[in-house]
């Protein structure tokens, strides 16, 4: 059993990376994510891993992919401006199906915005930030413990599905200190990417397989193959043929779509007979919990649906939980980036948005007002 200790969200994220077997971090300092880099600069060489401060975020993302293809679990951490710079290579990771984890501790944008102020403004950037259609996974922790757990999970998902996984921490959660009891090592489930078992001459890094996730051989392991950001055939070689591009595109979407029920996680609290459901994520879900407590004391039937996975969007759960509710409130520190998704499913007449983009947190009071129809 590990001892309870005070920990900061960013620190827990770094600890989660080590627990997940991360062996490479390439990054560039940016508030409010820098603590993650600083922790890993100290911890990684202790476990035989590598830390490097690159010349910018474009290089950081590239180095992470390079390290991953060398067989090391790899990550970076950044915030809005750096996340924007990483987008081209995040698309490259999606295209080449190289596992990697990108932590984005969100701050108020656009542009330099307010570096130390909380925001959830990168929800859509996480989804559509890189050009072209591609699947993505994004997780949103709401507590220090979840920063740990979700970073481990991010690595596991990334290794399992060969996909870049984004961890969207908002500044409040990243900088918050809480008492946590980290799970003991033996209780932490750690997944490794599937490696090929066939002889090298038969290996197809982008071949079809029942799981839609082909095995990935690290460079230098005796499997020589090609990786490119161009559309490619099963062997990895560039192709212009529609009959090769199409199955690939289908497969990379299918590998996530067929597993949404495994990937997309939510937590509910008292939604069974709720007339009002609050859909929230990150630190805002904590304010929502507080508001719900007060509302229930006033005998209001209010429930919480907390999204732990933002992408792929948990469409079925949102639909099931919100169907019977009269009202759905979506509070978020942006102008409705997740509300759009909720409205798409439950219809916009039922949805009430509560938004802030001034760098201040959404208070329980503001959510309570919405519950009470003020």
């Amino acid at each position, binding site marked *: 059993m590990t001892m309870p200790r005070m920990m900061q969200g960013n620190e827990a994220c770094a600890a989660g990376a080590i627990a997940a077997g991360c*062996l*490479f971090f*390439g990054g560039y300092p940016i508030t409010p994510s820098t603590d993650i880099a600083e922790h890993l600069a*100290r911890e*990684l*060489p*202790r*476990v*035989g*891993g*590598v830390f*490097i401060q*690159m*010349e*910018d975020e*474009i*290089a*950081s993302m*590239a*180095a*992470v*992919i*390079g*390290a*991953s*293809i*060398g*067989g*090391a679990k*790899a990550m970076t951490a950044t915030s809005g401006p750096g996340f924007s710079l990483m987008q*081209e*290579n995040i698309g*490259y990771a999606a295209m080449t199906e190289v596992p990697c984890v990108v932590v984005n501790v969100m701050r108020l944008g656009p542009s330099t915005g307010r570096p130390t102020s909380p925001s959830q403004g990168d929800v859509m950037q996480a989804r559509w930030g890189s050009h072209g259609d591609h699947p993505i996974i994004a997780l949103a922790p709401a507590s220090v413990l979840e920063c740990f757990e979700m970073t481990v999970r991010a690595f596991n998902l990334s290794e399992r599905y060969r996909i870049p996984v984004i961890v969207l921490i908002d500044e409040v959660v990243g900088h918050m200190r809480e008492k946590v009891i980290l799970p003991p090592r033996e209780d932490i489930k750690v997944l490794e990417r599937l490696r090929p078992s066939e002889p*090298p001459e038969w290996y197809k890094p982008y071949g079809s397989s029942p799981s839609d996730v082909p095995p990935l051989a*690290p*460079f*230098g*392991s*005796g*499997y*020589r*193959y*090609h*990786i*490119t*950001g*161009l559309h490619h055939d099963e*062997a990895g*070689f*560039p192709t212009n043929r529609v009959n090769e591009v199409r199955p690939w595109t289908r497969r990379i979407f299918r590998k996530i779509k067929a597993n949404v029920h495994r990937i997309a996680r939510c937590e509910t609290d008292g939604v069974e007979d709720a007339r009002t459901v609050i859909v929230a994520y990150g630190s805002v879900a904590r304010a929502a919990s507080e508001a719900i407590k007060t509302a229930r004391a006033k005998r209001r039937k209010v429930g919480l649906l907390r999204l732990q996975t933002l992408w792929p969007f948990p469409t079925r759960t949102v639909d099931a939980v919100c169907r019977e509710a009269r009202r759905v409130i979506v509070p978020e520190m942006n102008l409705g980036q997740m509300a759009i998704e909720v409205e798409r499913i439950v219809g916009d007449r039922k949805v009430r948005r509560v938004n802030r983009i001034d760098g201040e947190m959404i208070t329980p009071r503001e959510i309570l007002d919405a519950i009470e129809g003020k």
Partner: protein
Amino acid sequence: MSVKHPPSAYTYLRHKKKFPHVWCPGCGIGIVMGAIIRAVDGLGLDQNHVAIISGIGCTSRMPVYMDFNTMHTTHGRALAFATGLKLVRPDMHIIVVMGDGDALAIGGNHFIHAARRNIGLTAVILNNHIYGMTGGQVSPSTPVGMVATTAPYGNTDPPFPITDLSIAAGAAYVARSTVYHSHELEKYIRTGLEVPGFAVIEAVSYCHTTVGRLNKLGGAVEMMRNLKETSLTRRMAEKRSPEELEGKIVRGVFYHDACRKEYCALYQEIQEKAGGAKLAARRISSMEMV
């Protein structure tokens, strides 16, 4: 120096899968590819331990034809990808091939930082003085006055002196040759592979399809002849005045520092200090061949 027989193309080329190639007939890129292959062969390196990483451009199409661990990345970023790979697999030989735009414009920042760190990569810059793949726009190595599609009245921006830039930024080995001098090029690439630190080999080539046409310099044959006639060795160049060297290509080794510590070796010392060196060594050997 004894001339080795050329290695069998079947050993190093993806001959059954990837040919014919995309390059214009007469382009010099294939010569650089040949020089790389002969350098690797000459050193007797294991194919499984060699990676070729490139960015985007005509030059960067090279890896797909070669039977190594090959990676065609994003425009300008090849060195950053290679840095990540090298740090987790310091035992591998990594050759990074780039066009001049790839290496010096969009990738300029990565280039000087890779040199500054002195990381053990062999950077081959194919300098054709132009953006070939996108059809002849100016690059940071286009000579002043040369016509390009985005410099229809002649280029105004002075080119980077690639070798000086590399030395100033901290590369351990810096050499230049041309695609006419393919044996010399091979020799430099080979030495670059042997140097523990960051090696830069500028391979001067030409793009007859764009530069040749736009500037009425003839086709591949004329431009190849020009490389022969306008280039001279460093030793010869030392006897000439700066005016006489105007427009000339000086070939040779410009810098060779055998002492400076390579970056991965330095990081290994960090791992030793932190207590993780043994774990790192075990991980690397577990990555070895199946």
